[in-house]
Every structure is written in C-alpha cells, then in structure tokens.
C-alpha cells in the first residue's frame, strides 16, 4: 500500500505554490510549509555545489529514518516533491504523472498566473485520484 504523506510544488524562485497533506500526525501549518519549501529549494541548490563531478542537477531522493522524499525538477525549474513511507516504489513515475497533470490543468488554464499559488479544481481532483493506492500501483510500469 503506497503511503504518501504530502506533496509540495515549488516555483523556480523557491516559493511554495501547492501543498497537499495526506498524513494524520505530521500536519504543518501554512507558515511552516512555506519555510520547509524554501529550505528545500536552498538545500537542492547547495547540493549541486558540493558535487564531485560536473552536471549535478540536485537531490532526487532523500532517505530518512521515518520517511523518504522524492524530488523531481522540471526543465523550467519547477520542483515537485513528495514525502512518502520509506521504500515506497514508483514515486518517480508518480511525480512525472503529477507534472503532466500540472501542465494540463494548471499551465493550460488561461486564468492561472504563472508562479502563483495553484487554485485549480480540476488539478486537485485529478491529483487526489492519482495518489490513491491502487492508482499508484497501476503507474508502476
């Protein structure tokens, strides 16, 4: 059973534009989620500086004691990261799928201002469907 605790989307300047929390105990208030998102943006950039070889594009997976964090960075610099149970499979394909949903329901929405917080109903709806456990299993190609 795939247990996704939360999903964050950060714009290219490091500001949080979307946050969805599915967990029960680890809930954060808005200010904390903003801080955590900016902190992650900076850590991602610093990790590129510390690379021993050229061509580093930042942290893709962080493994902690009680959770894993998978991060996907799109070409324009928007970062999608998901906090899940340790060892959850297929998170990379889930992140790519969420990116597709983002391009379809957010970027193509003429009323959406780029880099602003996301308030698109269809995006929320499709996202909720996508993070349910059976759907994630199907994405595991």
């Amino acid at each position, binding site marked *: 059973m795939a247990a996704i605790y939360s999903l964050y989307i950060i714009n290219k300047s490091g500001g949080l534009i979307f946050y969805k929390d599915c967990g029960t*105990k680890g809930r954060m208030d808005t200010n904390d989620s903003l801080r955590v998102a900016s902190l992650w943006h900076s*850590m991602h950039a610093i*990790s590129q500086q510390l690379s021993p070889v050229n*061509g580093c594009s930042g942290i893709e997976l962080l493994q*902690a004691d009680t*959770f894993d964090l998978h991060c996907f960075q799109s070409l324009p610099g928007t970062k999608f990261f998901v906090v899940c149970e340790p060892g959850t499979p297929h998170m990379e394909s889930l992140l790519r799928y969420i990116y597709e949903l983002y391009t379809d329901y957010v970027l193509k929405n003429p009323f959406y201002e780029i880099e602003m917080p996301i308030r698109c109903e269809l995006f929320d709806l499709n996202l909720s469907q996508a993070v349910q456990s059976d759907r994630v299993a199907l994405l595991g190609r």
Partner: protein
Amino acid sequence: MQFFGGSEISPSPPVPTASGNNAHMMYVFNRNGVCLLYKEWNRPLHTLNPQQDHKLMFGLLFSLKSLTAKMDPTNADKGNLGVPQLPGQGCSFHSFRTNTYKLSFMETPSGIKIILVTHPKTGDLRESLKYIYGLYVEYVVKNPIYSPGSPIKSELFNTAVDQYVRSIS
C-alpha cells in the same frame, strides 16, 4: 537507536560487494563543525576552496537534519524549524542521492558526523559507516596523544580507512 553491540570491540566489516574504487570523498566532523578528516579519492570538480567546502557541507547537513526533524510525518510534536537538534533527537536522514553522487551520512550520539560521497548507484552504506566509526574509536579516540576536536593525523587510521573504503562497492 541501538548503536553498538555489547562487548564487541569493533564489528566485523560488511562483505564488500564489488572491487574497484567508487568513493569520491569522505568527511568527518565533530559536533562543533570542525572538520576532523577530509579524504579525497576521485574528485574532478572543485567548486569552492577547502574551508568553504567544509563549511558548506556542515551547513547543508545541519539544515537537512533540521528539515527532516520538522517534516517527520510520524511525530506529532516537533520543535520549530531551525532549532538545533541534539544527536539522536528527531528524525534524521541517512542518505541522499542526486544524479551524479550519493551522500551517506551517520551521526553518533557524541556528535561525530561521518559522510561518505560515492557514485549514485551505491547501496545502503549505514553498516560501512558504523565500521568506519569503529576504526575511528580504535585508532583515534584510544590514541592517548590525540586531543579531541583537532584534525586527525593518525597514519594508521588513514591507511585503515583508505583500505576499507577501496574495498566497498
């Protein structure tokens, strides 16, 4: 977390899975951020000078620990972001991976941080880091001439670590 077995002096090293040298570099820091050891085996790219590099590495680890303690989804009561965490308090990370390297991290209850940077396909190095800590205890801590908090100059430690790291995949 259960750290070491009862009466073993140093645990036997995990079986090496492949030959060849896949490690890029290794850092050992103490709880005050002093870099006790920096070893480099394969580092084509140097972005910063050594002092800045050590400070940046220590800062990154400090902030990542703060981040993981705050983001922990299983712990309801967390301190504020940025509050310094004691070793062992709060959820800590053990590794992160980018497309060009994998960084494995271990912090002991005394605040000694051991970091190993290897190629991205490396497996879980927690046992290896524990073994390296065992070497540190044997060759450095038990050396009566060594003063804690100063950079490690022990030849025996250096060769033992070098030999061990070259043997892990």
